[in-house]
C-alpha cells in the first residue's frame, strides 16, 4: 500500500521521498498501459460494424446491436450453460486437486521418493493440448484404448468417451486435472515449507496424531494461499481456455462441450465477425469481473483475506 501523503498534504514531496519505489514500478506501469489498457480501447469495435479497411474512425456505429444479437442467438443459453457448468466443475474438482496432492506429498517422508513423485506429476504441464488430445484419443478409444481395457477386466462394456455428450465435460476436466495438478502444487508446497516446525512439535507433545496436525496446523496455515488462489480462479471462471476444449470437440460431443471461447473462435476468426465476437468477449469479461468482486467481498467478510 502506498503511504498516505504527509501532514502538509504535499503529494509530490511524498513521491519524492519514495522515489526509488516509484522508479522501479515504472516499467510494470508502462507494461500494463501499453499492453493491457491501450488495447482495451479496441473493445469499442463491439459497438461498431467494424471494417478493417475503414478502421475505428470510419466504421459505422451500431450501439448495442451485437449484444442484442448475442442474447437472441438460439444457442446462446446452451453455450452459456456449458461454459458455466464446465467452469463450475473445474472449480469443484480441479481447484482442490493440487491442495490435496500437496498435502499428500507433504506427508511423504522419503525425500528422494518425494522429489521423483513431484517431478513426475508436474511434467504433463509442459505438454501442449494438441498432444494431450492425441494421447486421449488413443487412451480413451473403445476398441484399443487402455482405459476401456481396464473397464473390460471389471466386466464393464467399453465406453466411447469422446463420442458422447455425457462424458465430454468429464474428459475436459479430467485431462485438465491430469495436466495441471502437479504444477499447481508448487505454490502450496512453498507455503507448506514456510510453516514453523515448532508448531508440529508442540502439537505432538499435546498428543495430536498426523490427521489432527493436518487439520489444526497445516490447513489453517495454507488458508491464505488457498483463498487468494481461489479468488484468482474465480476471476477466470468463464475463461476455461479455448484450445483445451477445441481439440476435444467433435460432432458427437459439441452439444455439451461447446463453450463461449470456442464459439468466439468459430464465429469470429473463422467467419470474421470481429464486432460480434468482441461483444461476446466483453460479456464474458464483465461476468468475470462481477464474480471476482462478489467473491472478494465475501472472502473479506468471512476470512479477512482479499485481493484488494
Amino acid at each position, binding site marked *: 500500500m502506498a503511504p498516505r501523503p504527509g501532514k502538509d498534504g504535499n503529494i509530490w514531496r511524498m513521491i519524492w521521498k519514495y522515489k526509488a519505489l516509484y*522508479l522501479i514500478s515504472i516499467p510494470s506501469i508502462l507494461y500494463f498501459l501499453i499492453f493491457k489498457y491501450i488495447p482495451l480501447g479496441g473493445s469499442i469495435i463491439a459497438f461498431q460494424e467494424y471494417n*478493417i*479497411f475503414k478502421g475505428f474512425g470510419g466504421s459505422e456505429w451500431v450501439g448495442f446491436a451485437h449484444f442484442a444479437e448475442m442474447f437472441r442467438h438460439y444457442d446462446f443459453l446452451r453455450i452459456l450453460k456449458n461454459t458455466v457448468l464446465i467452469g463450475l466443475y473445474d472449480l469443484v474438482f480441479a481447484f482442490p486437486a493440487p491442495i490435496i496432492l500437496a498435502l499428500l506429498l507433504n506427508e511423504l517422508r522419503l525425500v528422494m521418493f518425494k522429489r521423483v513423485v513431484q517431478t513426475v506429476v508436474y511434467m504433463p504441464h509442459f505438454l501442449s493440448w494438441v498432444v494431450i488430445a*492425441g494421447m486421449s484419443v488413443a487412451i480413451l478409444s473403445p476398441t484399443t484404448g487402455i482405459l476401456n481395457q481396464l473397464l473390460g477386466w471389471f466386466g464393464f462394456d467399453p465406453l466411447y468417451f*469422446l463420442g458422447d455428450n455425457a462424458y465430454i465435460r468429464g474428459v475436459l476436466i479430467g485431462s485438465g486435472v491430469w495436466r495441471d495438478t502437479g504444477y499447481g502444487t508448487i505454490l502450496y508446497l512453498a507455503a507448506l515449507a514456510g510453516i514453523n516446525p515448532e508448531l508440529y512439535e508442540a502439537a505432538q507433545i499435546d498428543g495430536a496424531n498426523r490427521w489432527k496436525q493436518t487439520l489444526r496446523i497445516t490447513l489453517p496455515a495454507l488458508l491464505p494461499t488457498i483463498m487468494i488462489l481461489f479468488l484468482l480462479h474465480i476471476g477466470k471462471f468463464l475463461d476455461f481456455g479455448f484450445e483445451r476444449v477445441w481439440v476435444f470437440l467433435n*460432432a*458427437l460431443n*459439441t452439444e455439451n462441450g461447446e463453450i463461449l471461447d470456442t464459439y468466439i473462435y468459430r*464465429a469470429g476468426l473463422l467467419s*470474421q465477425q470481429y464486432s460480434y465476437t468482441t461483444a461476446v468477449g466483453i460479456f464474458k469479461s464483465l461476468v468475470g469481473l462481477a464474480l471476482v468482486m462478489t467473491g472478494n467481498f465475501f472472502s473479506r467478510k468471512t476470512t479477512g483475506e482479499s485481493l484488494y
Partner: protein
Amino acid sequence: MKLPANVNSIIGKEGIGLKKWASLMLTCMFAISLLAGCGGKDEAKEKAPGAAEQQAESGDTVTKFSISLRTLNFGYVEQSPDINADKWVKRLEELTNTDMDIRLVPHKEYEQKMAQMFATNDIPDVVQGQGGTTGKEMAGSVEAGVFMPLDDLLKQYGPNLLKKIPQEAWNRMSYQGKIYGIPEWLGNPSRRATWIRKDLLDKTGLPVPKTVDDYLNVLRAFKELGVENPYMGRQDFKYADTFFGAYDVFPYLSQFEEVDGQIQPKFLDADNMMKALSTYKTMFDEGLINKEFATINPTTFKNTILAGKAGIWSMNANELIQWKTQLKESVPEAELAIIPSPVGPDGKGGYYLYGDVARSYFINAKYKHPEKVIQFFDWMISDEAEQFFTFGVEGEDYTKDGDKMDYKQPTDVQAVDEERYRQAFLWMVQDTTYNKGSLSLTEEGRNLMSVFDNTLANEGRDGIEFDPRLEALKKNPDITPLSDTPPPLLITHMVKMVYGQEPIENWPKVIEEWKSKGGNDVLKEANDRYQSKEGAFLPRK
C-alpha cells in the same frame, strides 16, 4: 520528463544511492538508444529498394517486388532457413530478371495472417490469394480498392496469360466486371477419387464395383478377408463422403441446385440424403466402417491406410504415386488403384469439384511497376518456364540428347520434397491438374494421367456456387458449410444418425431446424442473387 532543478544538491545529500540510480537510468537510456539505433538501420535497409526502384525506372535493371506466399505445408519451404536465399528462388530471379522479397504466410493460420496483414496495412506488392476476389482470406480488400484492376495491363503485357488461362478461371478473378488477379488454374477440377486395394479385390474374386450395392458387397467381402477398415472413415465425413456423392447430396458450399425454379442446397433433397445416411448406417452396423470414425483425424486416417488396414477410401488422385510407395514399405504385396466412384440412382457419382482457381496473385494498387510483374507471370506459362520448373537446370538436373530427356526422378524423401517444391510451390501460374512433363516419363505417371483424363474427368458433382459468399451464411457459423465440410449443425445430426442415436427418418426435421436457424434467409438470398445473376456460378457438370 521534468527533472528537478536541484539535482546536484540531492546527489550531495543521498550520495552513492542516487548515483547508482543515475547509472541505472543511464544504462536504460543506453539500451533504448541501442534499440532506436537498430530501428535506424532498418530504415536504411528500407531505403535501399527505393533507390533500386529509381534505377529500374531508368533502364532494364532488375524488377524488385515483395510477394506473400502461403507455405502450403511443404516441408522444403517450412524448413528452409531463408527462402529468399534458396537456390531455386535465385535461379528463378536470374531467369526473370527480378528480385523477389518472399514473405511466407504459415499454412495453418493463413486466413488469420491475411486478415492481420490487411489490418496492419503491411501489404506486399504482390499478394497471393487462394482463388476468387471476395473470399474470406481477402477480407474485403478488393472491394476496399487495395489492389489494381489488371485488364489493360494484361492486354498489353500478358498476351500469353490471356490466351492460355481459361475464361472460367478469369471469371473467378473478376469483381464488378474487372479482372483483379492472375489465377493458377485447374484444368480438371475433379481431383478426389475412390481408391481401392486392388490386390484385396482380386482375392475376393469380385469385379470392380459400380453401384452402391456393388460397393457394399465388396466391403462385406473385405470384412470376411479380415480387413480392419473395409471403408476408411474420417471425422466429419471429410474424405469419407463417397456415398453422399453417389446420391448427389453433398452439404457443401458450392452445392446449391435448382428444384422447380427454386435455388436450394442439395441436402434439402430428403429422400436421397436419407438413402445416403442409411448406406453409412448399414456400414456402421455391419462393421464395414470404423466404429470410431467420428474421432479419426487426418493423421490416423493416413497411417491406418498406409499400414494396410483399409480396403476402400477417398483421397486426392495426385497423391497416388506417393502413397503407393509408402504403402509398399509396410505391405509389399499391396496394389493400389483408382476406380470409378459408386453411382447412385441417376447413374452418376464422384466427389465435389474443386474451384477453377487454385491460387491467385493480386497486385498492390500502390506498386509502381505492375507491368513488370505481369511480364513475370506471363513468363511462367512459357515453354522455358515449363522446362525449368519441371526438370530444373540443363546440365545439372537433366541432360538432353536430341529429343530424349534424361531426367533422374528423385527417390529419397528430401529430393522428392525439393522437386515438389519446384514444380508446385515455385511455379506460381500453371494448370495444376498434374505435371505432364515429369509424369509422362514413367509408366506409373502415365497411368495416373490416364486416371485423371479417363476416370476422374467423367465423374464429380458440381452445383451452383455463390461468390462472394451469401451474407446469410456469414452471419451464422452453425449453418455455414466449408468447401468440403458440412455445416456443424448438419454434421451433428448426420453423425448421430449413423451412430444410431437419432432416427434417419428425422432428416426432414433437421431441414426444418436448419431453416429456422437462419436457413430461410439463406434460401431467400440465394434465390434473389440467382435471379439478379450477381456472383452466381453455374454447375460445370
